């Protein structure tokens, strides 16, 4: 295993989600769904995996039909994401 390489983040959909989350304090479910072009169930599954790993936290806003979910990258997530990016860059070498 390459040092810093994270199998949870490596999956393309989760990697893209982490890249979005690293650049905004909070990200809505709808924004991720639109950007990643995923179905609601697939996105829920990917975000649930990141939450279980402790890389993302979620919060619900509102009630009933108006409920919206927002995600935030945790410190552990930030660290894992940065290490994963550094590992990828190290693999490709200096450009």
């Amino acid at each position: 295993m390459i040092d810093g390489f994270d199998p949870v983040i490596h999956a393309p959909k989760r990697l893209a989600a982490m890249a979005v989350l690293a650049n905004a304090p909070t990200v809505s479910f709808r924004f991720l769904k639109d950007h990643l072009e995923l179905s609601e169930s697939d996105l829920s599954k990917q975000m649930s995996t990141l939450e279980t790993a402790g890389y993302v936290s979620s919060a619900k806003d509102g009630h009933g039909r108006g409920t919206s979910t927002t995600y935030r990258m945790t410190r552990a997530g930030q660290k894992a994401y940065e290490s994963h990016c550094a590992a990828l860059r190290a693999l490709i070498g200096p450009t």
Partner: protein
Amino acid sequence: MESEEVKEQLQAIERGAAAPYINYPTTPLWYAPAIGAWAAAMVETFAWYPESVGKFAGSIAALVALELLFIVWMKRRHGALPMPGRGKPPAEIARVWRGYWIGLTVVAVVVAVLWLTVGIPVAAIATFVLVTAGMALYENRYAVAAAKTKARLQ
């Protein structure tokens, strides 16, 4: 891992990282004048100081509360509103942000000079005009930079 796969992953990271900066709802027409009016009101509020500290403090608190509500609305509307200090904007956007801070400094200096030489009412009018024009220019340049970034990352 194949180097092509690594390159694809790095490109996915770049596209994802750029998304909060380049995917945003259309800016409403009232946005620039509203920001101009808010900034002008902030300056005009100082006309009450020190004669009526209560009125002054109340107005400042109301304007700050209004700004906070505006940010909450913007965050909900955008879905992934970028904030300075969080992440790294694409080079095209970073250039526009640098221009924003330079412009803000210039406007602050001009307003301060007018405040000290001509008085608060004139400084408030100048604030409205300069901030409205500055925000309109910024929004225009930001849209161009976002379009360039989108084209580069496609």
